[in-house]
Structure formats: structure tokens, C-alpha cells
């Protein structure tokens, strides 16, 4: 198959779950023998879209990457409009203004895809025509503007969760225009189908895969950093939007009640976060140190209330560590129920209770970790590629 991916940012230097997943999926499809061309921008930053990469074509691990420049966005106007539309969605003019203000709007990318896609020639006769065009995330102008150009063979990976932008009419248009939908979890599928009314659009829960993890070494983690003797680990961006401020408050309550586990936050810190002295922070860490910290941790905490797929949960389970997840995140709750690899909390009080339960019972930790490990073992790239083929092959017929 000749597959095009459209995504707002792409590259090893890009920090972002959706973009990393897109890149991993593209590389897995190429390894499996498919042709993948990625249409993306020159940006690394998702607010300013300032150029970081040069425009032009590049090959990344067998994936053809086509980078295009973008119009300057207006992030402060976009933020104002999100605030207004979050309370009153559906105004087409304001939603369109939001899409353009947020960006990234790349006219060169639109031209390139239009040239490839809108031709009186048959698909085989077109230059660089793609069998399918897969737009990653409903949220950015790349998908919003490309979707109408390629609607005869458009696939959307919504990566949706319960957030204000999912209520926008423009978002419903993006979702309804897709010929097929690729979901990360059954919970995301139900959310999108119910809110956009697209039960009849073909869809597959494609999920993700995992490359083999480096072996973790708790001793190495302790030699590298001053870590608490026993601790709960958070992996990811240290940001209030990810529920980290609520996590710190809940963990403070747990400590005041005499809880023995410390808290380690491993990830890049968002500006404005206030971290108390008793919390250990590491800043951004690489894959090897992630594995070492997972080996040293007793529990992995998942505080984010919004997820379309919790890769960190899968990472924790793969390392045999139980998770303690925010029950408000339907996806985390679903993944936890399906795996049996952890517990859930609903607020600060139950956070303390569940963490105490895990801290006091090594056997429960081991059993949950083992169940999680068995669950995560099914998340291979071979299985993921097979699910992508199940979705895309009928569109190429």
C-alpha cells in the first residue's frame, strides 16, 4: 500500500505523545513492507510552529518525510477562542478563526496534497498519488484542512478524549468526513462514535506497539540520582494539564497520614509548575533511565484525567509494575480493568487509600505487575500493523 500520513510535527526531537506514536507507527508499517510518506511541517514547537527543520524531503528510517513551512499562528487569539467556544461551541466563523489562529496552516502542504489527490487521472496514473491519506489527530489545522482535499480516501486517527474542542462543529465535520477511523482504545471509539454520531463509519481499534525495552536496573537508577528508598513514579510531562498538581496535593495528604512512599516526577517540567521540596524531580530522561526508574519504583501513578491511550500504563506493566490510575480517565479505567494490572482512585482520599494498599502488600503488587506484564505482551508492532492493514486494505480495493 502507498500510505500518506499527515501530522502537525514529526521527528525524533519532537516531544509529544501523538507525534511519537505517529512516527513509531509509520516506521512499523515501513518495516512491514508498506510505503509511507509523511506530510508534516518544519516545526518542533506546537504553539509558535517556528521552523526547526529545513523544508523539503527527507528519509527517516525508511519513511519519506516531506516538510512544509507554515503561516504564522496567533496562539493568544487561539487560546481566547478556545475559552469562548468551550462554553458555547458551534459558531462556524469563530471555530474557523480558531483553527487558523492555532494552526499550523501550511499552504504548500495543501498544494502538494491537492496535486496528488485531485486529478482526473486514475489513481495509478497520478504522480505520487497515495492509496490512503491518514490524518493524525482531529485537533490541528493540518488534519482540518487536508481532510476535505482527500476525503475520497481519508482516514482519521482522532486521538480524542473528553475535551472542549471535541464539542466543536468543526471537529464533527472532520470526523464525519473520514472514510474510516483508527482508534487507540475501545473507550475512545465509543466516545467518538457517540459524540459525532458515526457508528456506521468503518473503524478499528489499532492501538500501538512497543519496541523491546532496555533492561532496567534499580541500582543504576539509585547510583545516578538521590531517590527515596521507596517511591511512586510519575512518567511524562510535569504539567497541571496532565493532573500533576492534583497528584502532588493527593500525595501530600498521603504523606501526612504517614504513607511511606515518596514521589518521583520524571519528565520535562512545564513553566509555572510549583514543586514542593519533598518531591524528587529528574527533568527529561532517556529510554535507559526510564527503564531504570521503573525498576526502582514500587508503583506507577497515572494522574491525567484525559487520555486516548495510556502508553505509560503499558510501559509500567511491561516492566511488571502495578499502576494507580485516575478513574476519571475512562481510557485508563478501561485499560486497568482489562489488564488487572493496577488500581484506580477517584480523588485525594481514595488516592491515599489505594496507594497505602499497594505499599503495604508486596504480593498484590507482584500479582498486579504480572497480570499487567501479560496484558502488555500483546502490544507488539506486528499485531498493530495487522490491525492497520485490516483498516486500510478495504479502502485500497
Amino acid at each position, binding site marked *: 500500500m502507498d500510505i500518506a500520513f499527515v501530522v502537525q510535527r514529526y521527528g525524533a526531537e519532537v516531544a509529544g505523545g501523538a507525534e511519537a506514536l505517529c512516527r513509531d507507527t509509520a516506521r512499523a508499517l515501513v518495516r512491514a513492507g508498506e510505503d509511507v510518506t509523511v506530510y508534516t511541517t518544519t516545526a518542533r514547537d506546537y504553539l509558535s510552529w517556528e521552523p526547526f527543520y529545513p523544508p523539503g524531503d527527507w528519509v527517516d528510517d525508511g519513511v519519506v518525510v516531506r516538510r512544509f513551512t507554515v503561516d504564522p499562528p496567533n496562539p493568544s487569539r487561539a487560546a481566547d477562542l478556545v475559552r469562548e467556544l468551550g*462554553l458555547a461551541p458551534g459558531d462556524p466563523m469563530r471555530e474557523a478563526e480558531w483553527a487558523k489562529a492555532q494552526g499550523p496552516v501550511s499552504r504548500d502542504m495543501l498544494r502538494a496534497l491537492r496535486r496528488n489527490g485531485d486529478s482526473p487521472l486514475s489513481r495509478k496514473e497520478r504522480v505520487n498519488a497515495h492509496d490512503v491519506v491518514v490524518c493524525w489527530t482531529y485537533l490541528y489545522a493540518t488534519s482540518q484542512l487536508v481532510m476535505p482535499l482527500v476525503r475520497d480516501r481519508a482516514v482519521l486517527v482522532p486521538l480524542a478524549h473528553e*475535551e472542549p474542542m471535541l464539542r466543536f462543529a468543526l471537529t464533527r465535520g472532520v470526523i464525519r468526513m473520514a472514510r474510516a477511523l483508527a482508534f487507540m482504545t475501545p473507550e475512545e471509539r*465509543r466516545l467518538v462514535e457517540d459524540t459525532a454520531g458515526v457508528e456506521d463509519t468503518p473503524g478499528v481499534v489499532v492501538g500501538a506497539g512497543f519496541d523491546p525495552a532496555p533492561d532496567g536496573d534499580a541500582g543504576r537508577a539509585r547510583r545516578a540520582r538521590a531517590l527515596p528508598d521507596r517511591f511512586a513514579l510519575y512518567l511524562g510531562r510535569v504539567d497541571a494539564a496532565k493532573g500533576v498538581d492534583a497528584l502532588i496535593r493527593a500525595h501530600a495528604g498521603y504523606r501526612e497520614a504517614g504513607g511511606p512512599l515518596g514521589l518521583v516526577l520524571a519528565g520535562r517540567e512545564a513553566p509555572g509548575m510549583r514543586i514542593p521540596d519533598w518531591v524528587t524531580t529528574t527533568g527529561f530522561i532517556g529510554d535507559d533511565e526510564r527503564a531504570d526508574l521503573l525498576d526502582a519504583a514500587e508503583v506507577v501513578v497515572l494522574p491525567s484525567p484525559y487520555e486516548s491511550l495510556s502508553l505509560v500504563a503499558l510501559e509500567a506493566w511491561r516492566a511488571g509494575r502495578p499502576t494507580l490510575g485516575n478513574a476519571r480517565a475512562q481510557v485508563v479505567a478501561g485499560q486497568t480493568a482489562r489488564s488487572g494490572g493496577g488500581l484506580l482512585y477517584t480523588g485525594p482520599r481514595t488516592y491515599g487509600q489505594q496507594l497505602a494498599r499497594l505499599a503495604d502488600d508486596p504480593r498484590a503488587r507482584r500479582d498486579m505487575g504480572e497480570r499487567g506484564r501479560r496484558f502488555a505482551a500483546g502490544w507488539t508492532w506486528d499485531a498493530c500493523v495487522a490491525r492497520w492493514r485490516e483498516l486500510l486494505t478495504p479502502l485500497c480495493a
Partner: protein
Amino acid sequence: MGAAAGESEPDPDLLLEELRRAAGDPPLPPLHIAEPAPSARDGVSGKAVGSSRRAVMRLITPALADLLAQLEADRHRMQAEIRRLEARVAHLEKYAPPED
């Protein structure tokens, strides 16, 4: 393909217009929270009350918008569930054995 896709230069405004048309009607009318009402008082105190209301609203808007998004998802989930149950009941009634 619509007009936006057929033009030689793709126009973002026309592409967004195509999206708006594709959006159609939502499964349920969207929930809205109106702007705070202006104060009934005249003069400086009225202006102060109005701007205080707007400031408070601005402060709580992100949390309110998140709550609305959750509520909206719950409403749609419930409505879809009712639709699925109705379809199931209709199916069962269609194939139910005739009563004696």
C-alpha cells in the same frame, strides 16, 4: 470533491466551509453557558459588578469548559446507549415467538 478542493490554489476558508457543511447536525443540541449578565445597577458600581462577574467567569472558564465536555460526553453516551437498547428490543420483538 467540493469547490475548495477543485480550485487550483486550496483556500483554507473554503476548506473550513466544507468541514462546516460536513458537520451537519449534532446528535444532541450542544450545551451552552451564556456570558454573565450585566449588572442592573447604574454607574460606577454597576460597571464594577459587571467587570467582576466577567473576571470570575474568565477565571473559572477552563474548569467549566472541562466539566461541560464531560457532561456532553455523558449525555451522548447515554443517548447512544438508549438507541442501542431500543434497537435490541425491536430486534427481539421482531423475532419473538408469537403469543398463544
